[in-house]
């Protein structure tokens, strides 16, 4: 198929940036979206132009690196997938495809389609962990009984890959689905209880400090999340926060 691409080009964080039109031809419907981008970049390199910078790593929907906003949706028009899992069969011959970086004040553009998502790292560092002494006497996690429902919910929350699609798609650029998932995965398990109050207070404080917006429950994040993280995690975070606040 032949396609017209409207791609956001921005030299660096301080440059203005603009959408630039490119043509790509003979694109196979079996290609992944990133392979199509590779074809474009090869074309650009061959003609002496700067290739388009974009984040990618595992290319199998696990690492959370790819981050494009394609035709007005995070990770493109298909649901439950990352950009690397999006295939060209989701488009038609002759289509014009808009490709933009994830937009949020807390995710500044570094170059072209690459954004700085280190705000998520700092939120994780604020409390998204459990403190374990790995001296060799650590208790085997399997020896702690956990109900299946709680284990399943914790596992579902833990599947968040931190790609930032929730922020990119939210009209408020809120990070509550990400933080909700990270808070939930520990709040649901006995291992996470000891630091539960500090965790939610610290992670929410860091989220606010990073400049993410306020959630207004549109639910767009849940729909666009490649891992299907549920809004229930935001509700759980709200409960955890209120519980922690009441303890002082």
């Amino acid at each position, binding site marked *: 198929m032949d396609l017209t691409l409207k791609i956001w080009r921005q030299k660096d964080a301080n440059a203005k940036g603009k959408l630039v039109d490119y043509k790509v031809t003979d694109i196979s419907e079996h290609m992944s979206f990133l392979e199509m981008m590779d074809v474009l970049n090869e074309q650009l390199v061959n003609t002496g132009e700067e290739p388009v910078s974009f984040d990618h790593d595992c290319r199998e929907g696990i690492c959370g690196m790819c981050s494009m906003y394609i035709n*007005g949706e995070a990770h493109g028009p298909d649901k439950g997938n990352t950009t690397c899992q999006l295939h060209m069969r989701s488009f038609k011959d002759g289509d014009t495809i808009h490709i933009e970086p994830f937009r949020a004040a807390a995710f500044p553009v570094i170059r072209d389609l690459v954004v700085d998502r280190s705000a998520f790292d700092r939120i994780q560092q604020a409390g998204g962990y459990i403190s374990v002494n790995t001296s060799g006497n650590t208790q085997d996690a399997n020896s702690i009984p956990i109900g299946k429902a709680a284990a399943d919910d914790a596992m579902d929350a833990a599947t968040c890959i931190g790609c930032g699609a929730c922020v990119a798609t939210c*009209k408020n*650029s809120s990070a509550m689905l990400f933080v909700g998932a990270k808070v939930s995965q520990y709040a649901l398990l006995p291992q996470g209880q000891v630091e539960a109050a500090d965790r939610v207070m610290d992670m929410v404080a860091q989220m606010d400090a990073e400049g993410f917006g*306020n959630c207004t429950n549109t639910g767009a994040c849940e729909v666009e999340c490649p891992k299907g993280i549920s809004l229930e995690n935001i509700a759980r975070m709200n409960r955890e*926060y209120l519980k922690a606040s009441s303890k002082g």
Partner: protein
Amino acid sequence: MSGILSSSIAKKVSMALSAFFLMFFLLQHFAINILSVFSGNLFNQVSHFMGTNPLIQYVLQPVLIFGVVFHFVMGFILEIKNRKAQGKKYAKNNGAANSTWMSRNMILSGIVILLFVLLHFIDFWFPEINTKFIQGDWSGMHDGEFRYFQELQHKFLSPLRVGVYCLAFVFLSLHLLHGFNSAFQSVGANNKYIKGLRSFGKLYSILIPAGFIFIAIFHHFNH
């Protein structure tokens, strides 16, 4: 404590709590107004009670005013903060693919409701406050009769006013269709009862504004 109040979740929860209060107020306002369809006399008696009871006038009415002002002011604060958090806008954004129009336009429906509240205050509340608190007339009478039902009928003579009221109630319905369930989500109520609650929320959000529209149209054609 100030840290708790300034957090994003505290803002969400405070919006939700003021919304719960306003939704309860809306329900009781409707319950009283619908009486006017069945009996002008009964409507007069209940209105007089509401308008002269010291607990309602000096305790609940100020709480209501605070609730209304708080909800609007916090709504605008959140909108400004959220716009700041957005950064540059997308050249192409397909919001309809993942969220409802109502959820994305709460500020728009909220502004329409705010304008309606101002009109409603000019129509009913300011004259009431003037009569009672400035002129000192707490009798509720006009020409030897209770005035409440007469005033209601008089206001709904104008087709323009009825039209504006009906339009505002449509926006109120749109606001509630997202706001009702959003408020429960904000206080963390997302559990096995959520499906039933969502259905109830939809019913509430459609039936109450539809009821207000019915009352306005009823009095326009029956006077």
